[in-house]
């Protein structure tokens, strides 16, 4: 037992590297926030565009959503980081990670928002038309508020899962939490930094996990009411 705490929770190592690891946490937080904002906004935009029922939009939507929902995140990350430079596009690890994660979240949230929009009965749009509310106003004030509310429990789960992908940034040399812990671990020849990173991930994500649990429970209750 003594060896476990000495190896995995070594105070000396922790004291030497906590600054570096906190820097990593800060990068993780930034990437996570940017991903959520861009990914949700992007998905909402795509879903609204699809409301126009333009054939071209439909095709772009289907191709985009299916590609980014199907190919693993790490593969997309590598494509952007290692393949794009052959086409002359060189993006920093930070931009690569944010771009990858928000493209993926955009695809998922677009699909969820659109499914929610489609799930709203036709009568809602009929009623809005009968009340002389215009097409755009109907989408903005009648359809979207309901669709967003329906999507929230599904999307919080998805958004958490995808923002946890910030750790994948380590694979393209992004000095986020995992990356900085890994480099500290190899220098210190001790796994304490990695355990610190794990604990910080828990501290960062557990409030979100609890929030999503609460949202899901509330929506179940509302459905039963």
């Amino acid at each position, binding site marked *: 037992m003594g060896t476990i705490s000495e190896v995995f929770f070594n105070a000396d190592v922790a004291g030497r590297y906590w600054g570096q690891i906190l820097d990593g946490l800060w990068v993780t937080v930034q990437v996570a926030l940017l991903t959520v904002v861009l990914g949700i906004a992007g998905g909402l935009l795509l879903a609204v565009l699809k409301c126009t029922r333009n054939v071209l939009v439909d095709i772009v939507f289907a191709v985009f959503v299916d590609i980014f929902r199907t190919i693993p995140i790490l593969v997309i990350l590598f494509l952007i980081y290692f393949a794009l430079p052959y086409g002359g596009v060189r993006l920093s690890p930070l931009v690569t990670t944010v771009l990858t994660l928000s493209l993926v979240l955009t695809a998922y949230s677009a699909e969820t928002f659109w499914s929610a929009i489609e799930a709203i009965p036709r009568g809602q749009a009929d*009623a809005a038309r*009968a009340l*002389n509310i215009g097409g755009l106003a109907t989408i903005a004030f009648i359809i979207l508020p309901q669709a967003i509310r329906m999507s929230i429990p599904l999307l919080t789960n998805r958004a958490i899962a995808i923002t946890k992908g910030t750790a994948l940034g380590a694979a393209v040399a992004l000095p986020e939490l995992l990356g900085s812990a890994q480099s500290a671990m190899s220098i210190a020849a001790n796994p304490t930094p990695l355990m610190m990173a794990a604990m910080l991930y828990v501290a960062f994500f557990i409030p979100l996990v609890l929030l999503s649990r609460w949202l899901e429970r509330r929506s179940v209750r509302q459905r039963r009411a």
Partner: protein
Amino acid sequence: MPRLPGETMISIDKLNKWFGDFHVLKDIDLDVAQGQRIVLCGPSGSGKSTLIRCLNGLETFEKGRVNVVGVELTRASATIRQARQQVGMVFQSFNLFPHLSVINNLLIAPRLTGSRNMGEVRDYAMHLLERVRIADQAGKYPSELSGGQQQRVAIARALCMRPRVMLFDEPTSALDPEMIKEVLDVMVDLGRDGMTMIAVTHEMGFARTIADSVVFMDAGRIVETAPPASFFDNPQSERAQRFLKTILH
């Protein structure tokens, strides 16, 4: 400005509509004067709902003319909007907006269609809620109301646009029996106040109390038009007789 009674509010002339190959409305002719109350009935699939949905542009039609309070309906969105200003509609499934409170269900259309004086609109909305006897629920959400209450809110919502004509598309068929009366009472009040109404309904009591005439449709055609008493007691066409037998049992 009140119009003289007897002025034509809705005029339908040789209206024809198809859903693909299916001929839903065949040569419909119907005139509705100011203050008239029409009950449309007929077996399901006879085209009665489609007919009233044509009157406010929820459905388009291929042939014929429809004139709604002086507006000749075309496919142009401008004329459809103009017609909708004059026409309120109540649906079978209420179609209240679930994310808005009762009062906001009434206010959203005036707000979005650019009403100037929202204070005045709000007063009028409260007055309407009182009229449908639901003012005490103004702050609640539709899911907290019974079906009958929701439908009364839907009626108030349609009235809030100050329509000249009210359309009712089977307003009581989704309701539990004990709630039908409260909705019909509101509709009867509305008729007594002189509102021009077209109601798709099989409620004979309502038709007898308030309707000027019953229009019976079958297979996309108007088969018979008669005052309620003579229609229910002494239907002329064989199809109306058969239909009345099925709804009486």
